[in-house]
């Protein structure tokens, strides 16, 4: 039987070598299956990338990958043959058929044929959804008259007061929108997100017209949440690379990044004076940085679990997350001395955590989102529980709550003075409330949905 297998392989290889080996149809699948885990943009071990043709032609630190026409002299072949081949690491050696194919490709001159039409999944926005899409982010215009909801790849503009107006749908090139927000003057809408593991993107729309201004792509994964600068000239967004990215609304201006965290930055907010950024993320840390110097001022806290949202008024940073806590950090005490000593690099803070922590009441469940009013007086907090709590930031006391909301709530937003609140639920509902008295102003699923089995009938 063994002998028969070998015969088969030889005959297979024979078939293949009769025709030209196609790079895209035959070689690339081998690279993809066995190599690009370590040799790609994300992780170019040995300086080698195999995820695009130019990089394959260039080779890695130890030189070019192949000598055209000479498989035996080619590094690629040397690495994958022998009793214990160097590559692939921690995996069974390539089958003799695959090695033969790579040899043939090099022997035939290592030619790169025309790539087939892209199969990368394009953004698809259904006219009618089969399942109500989860609301991933909501925003309220400063005057509270327009609510914006993000579902997957599109945003919907909803008039709060005119219930007859058809919600307007704006599409984006992001697979997953993670954050929508009005600029402080209400004249611009930022829609950020991107495609997981591919790119981050921010799209700006002119408001109230909803006219596309421009889209900017950045990085290799989606942006997470963030917040506009008080002057409206930039929006700071969390990145999967552990950095906070300051994306200017001016398409020509440079994006500045502060590399701060060891894992995803899930939320960023500016202090009201626009001088500092508060960040929190999957590494469980809450940090305060300087916008001017793009440097860390102080890591103010290390939670026991993920920090999902941050907020700030003039006096304190606030962070909340999966540890079911909401904690304030008094700037004056926490940052005392740190800038003098050299912005955190080596400087020893004057005060300890227990001297600057300003705790809120315990939260009933995992904190999923927080929103501050434009005047930074009010803080709305959504957990997994069907209740939104609203706190007065100055004294950290709960002033009101909206209950019986369709939990879990993915996103909350407040208008400029905290009179109206918008929320978006995982099951696809958008609701707008009057905070005082908790009156429900609107409740809707903002996109057309027809369940599959209804379609079948």
């Amino acid at each position, binding site marked *: 039987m063994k002998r028969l297998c070998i015969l088969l392989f030889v005959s297979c290889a024979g078939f293949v070598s009769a025709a030209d080996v196609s790079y895209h149809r035959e070689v690339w699948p081998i690279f*993809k299956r066995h190599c690009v885990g370590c040799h790609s943009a994300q992780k170019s071990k040995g300086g080698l990338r195999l*995820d695009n043709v130019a990089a394959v032609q260039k080779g890695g630190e130890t030189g070019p990958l192949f000598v055209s026409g000479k498989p035996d002299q080619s590094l690629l072949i040397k690495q994958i043959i022998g009793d214990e081949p160097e590559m692939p690491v921690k995996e069974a050696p390539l089958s003799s058929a695959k090695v033969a194919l790579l040899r043939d490709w090099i022997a035939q001159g290592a030619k790169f044929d025309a790539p087939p039409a892209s199969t990368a999944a394009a953004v698809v926005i259904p006219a009618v959804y089969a399942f109500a899409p989860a609301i991933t982010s909501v925003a309220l215009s400063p005057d509270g008259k327009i609510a914006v909801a993000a579902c997957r790849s599109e945003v919907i503009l909803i008039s709060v007061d005119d219930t007859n107006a058809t919600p307007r749908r704006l599409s984006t090139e992001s697979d997953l929108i993670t954050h929508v927000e009005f600029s402080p003057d209400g004249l611009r809408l930022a829609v950020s997100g991107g495609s997981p593991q591919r790119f981050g993107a921010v799209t700006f729309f002119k408001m109230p017209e909803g006219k596309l201004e421009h889209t900017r792509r950045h990085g290799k994964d989606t942006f997470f949440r963030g917040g506009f600068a008080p002057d409206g000239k930039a929006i700071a967004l969390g990145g999967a690379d552990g950095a906070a990215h300051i994306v200017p609304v001016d398409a020509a201006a440079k994006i500045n990044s502060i590399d701060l965290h060891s894992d*995803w930055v899930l939320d960023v907010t500016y202090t009201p004076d626009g001088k500092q950024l508060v960040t929190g993320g999957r590494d469980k840390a809450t940090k305060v940085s300087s916008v001017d110097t793009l440097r860390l001022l102080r890591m103010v806290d290390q939670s026991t679990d993920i920090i999902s949202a941050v907020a700030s008024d003039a006096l304190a940073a606030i962070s909340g997350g999966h540890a079911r806590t909401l904690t304030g950090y008094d700037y004056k005490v926490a940052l005392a001395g740190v800038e003098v000593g050299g912005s955190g690099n080596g400087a020893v803070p004057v005060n300890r955590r227990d001297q600057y922590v300003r705790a809120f009441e315990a939260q009933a469940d995992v904190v999923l989102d927080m929103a501050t009013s434009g005047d930074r007086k009010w803080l709305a907090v959504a957990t997994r529980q069907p209740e939104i709590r609203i706190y007065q930031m100055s004294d950290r006391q709960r002033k009101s709550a909206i209950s019986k909301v369709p939990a879990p709530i993915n996103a909350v937003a407040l208008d400029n003075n905290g009179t109206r609140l918008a929320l978006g639920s995982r099951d696809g509902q958008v609701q707008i409330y009057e905070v005082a008295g908790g009156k429900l102003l609107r409740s809707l699923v903002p996109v057309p949905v027809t369940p599959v089995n209804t379609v079948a009938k």
Partner: protein
Amino acid sequence: MKHILPLILLALSLTAQAQSVPVIAGNLTVSPASLTLTRQHEPHSLVVMGRDAAGHDVDLSRLTKWTSSSDAIARVDALGWVNAVTSGQVTLTGQAAGKTVQVSVSVKLPPVAQPLSFRHDVMPVLSKGGCNMGACHGYSLGKNGFKLSLRGSDPALDFPVITEEFLERRINRHNPPASLMLLKPLGDLPHEGGVRFDPGSLSHTTMLAWIAQGAKDDSPTLTTLQSVRIHPAKVVAAPKARQQFQVLARYSDGTERDVTRMAIFEVNTERVARVDDVGLVAATGLGETAIAARYERIFAVANFIVLPADTGFKPAPVPQDNLVDRHVVTKLNDLRIEASPVVDDERFLRRLHVDLIGVQPKPDEVLAFVADAAPDKRAKAVERLLLRTEFVDWWSLRWGDLLQNSRNTTSDPGVYAFREWIRAAIAANKPMDQFAREILTARGATADNPAAAWFAASKDADDSLQRSTQVFAGVRMLCAKCHPHPFENWTQADYYGLHSFFNQVSTKADPRLPGVANARSVLVNLQGGLSTNPRTGQAQPPRYLGGAEPKLGESVDRRLDYARWLTAPDNAHFARSIANRFWSYFFHRGIIDPVDDLRATNPPINAALLDALAADFVKSQFDMRQLIRTIVNSRTYQRSAVPLASNAHDDANFSHAIPRRLPAEALLDSLVQATGVPENFGGAPTAFTAAQLPDANFSSEFLNLFGKSQRMEACECERDTRSNMLQALDFINGRSILSRVTAANGRPALLLQPKPADDVLIDQLHLWALARRPSDVERALAQKFFKEYGDKRAEAAQDFFWGLLNSRDFMLLY
């Protein structure tokens, strides 16, 4: 892709044509003979078996040509899987090797296709792809921010992680192919774990379809998986044969699914066979292996035996006088292996002495035994040794190891008291069930109840439950403390169920022994509550191994119930694990090996033997001496270490003795006896032998070098029985042997005093060193050796004796 497919088909047809059609002696069998299909996209495999003239099972599945009485209802694809088309009843007819088989198929498709189930369809995809392995996303911290439950143990935790976390970034219900859950494992996006799904594979299509159906959770009334079986359960294959296995899952509603393509296969002995990821096993060598298949959390194991072509093997008559021989010879006949003959008297006596009393026989014992003409002299020798005081030393040492009696954890008086308690039990032949119960329920100070030293040695309830299951049930539970056990269906509920039996115990310093290190008293808090299962956060009621939860009253010592359950005659673990462990003390391995890692995926090499041995042990009322007697009186124990042509490859079925190194204490005590020069153990009472030492905390480089148990763990592996270079160097260059053979009171000097003739001296040196007389060849060599030394007889005797003690014949039992 398009132009590769014809190649594959070509290859398949070539394989089919080239494979010679075997001659089948009897009828073919097909599994299943009838089946019901209730789901459209869930085909069922067919395994067709025959038997050739040489008695090998032959898998004809790939050679069978199938026709369906109606392709409009069900058809068989090129790989031999039955696919449902529409509801109805058909007969499939298969032809192979000139014979015919039939399968009746009933297709009952529901009017509306059932949606895919997260638990029954998607979770197996994650397991099959290896996504939730310990090295990948099943790691306790996840990988790259994506954490799944280890080996799919907790679907309820995995569901939100996949469908909800980080704003549903991992799936896209509205554009399913764009889901990270597909792009990453397909390799369309860089994935450190590599490509896990092939495009178009069942894993790919299942995940895609489930997302497209809305990535829904299961209803609370979902059926549960009840059992998993593998077919065929036993295969006797020819060399280089291939066998397709079939894995079937049975659910709580009585339905059965063919889950072969989603099962995870492993071969226990890779020398014998390899298995691919769809359960096709290829025989690669002679012998026997288990083929383990895992589906969801349940394991099923098949026995795969590869026998040579018929070589004219004549089965040996199966002895009926000894249960050990009966089952071992039956198995050897199945494997077409002959057993080696019984070893000669001298080697037998040495093996028996070392195994039973931990020291070689002395020359007069050897000579008397050889001279004895009684036909039952071996059985009589066994009886004599069972009554020797060294027998008590030796087995107290073994139990002292397992029970971890040591000053590491127990006070000096406590260690001696517990040692005496064990010795009294061995001397009185206390039934092993009673022995275990008294230990597992002991309380108080060691001065009052020496057996309490066992609990006093536990750090906490975790330690007690792990030690008790490992020592008295042969089961390792540690894994299940933090996650489901990777090789057995133990969960945290099982672990904390045991924990609840032991958590009433605490220790405090013994007030009567102030200032004495490790002097502790064992207390039982009858009001103590139940342990908390960290997975559920709920109190976990006491639960026996195997799942039953007893109803226990308030304010009782829960250990009493555990000890009663454990030592009940029908307990599945106790007698079996002890019988297996004791077996390993007389052979190079247990019937299950390692002896304290009993689980479904580590099946016994001879299940009938272990069952019979355990049953006999229960029947004898847990009589340790009777268990030993049964083993050592067997021909199996007494086999020669010289292999035969037909059994040389057998290292597992006890067809011949496989040499074992003497345990540290037996080696040292035998060396002391041979040379007549005692070992001085710092701190131990004078004249204590190595086997009598109460623990390992006496200075002895020799014992440490040869792997004496340090009693730090309740694991049989605490005793290291392997050989290494340092041991050889110590024997050759060290003082252990050299200083003894050259000592003024050493054996050579003593033997030379009466000025014996060379022949007498040679015999005596052999008898003292190796407990046997020299062979003719050895004698001739020895005579030549002594001649060369001339009148330097002392030097000759020392050098010769040194040589004997450095030979493998001294180091090994053979």
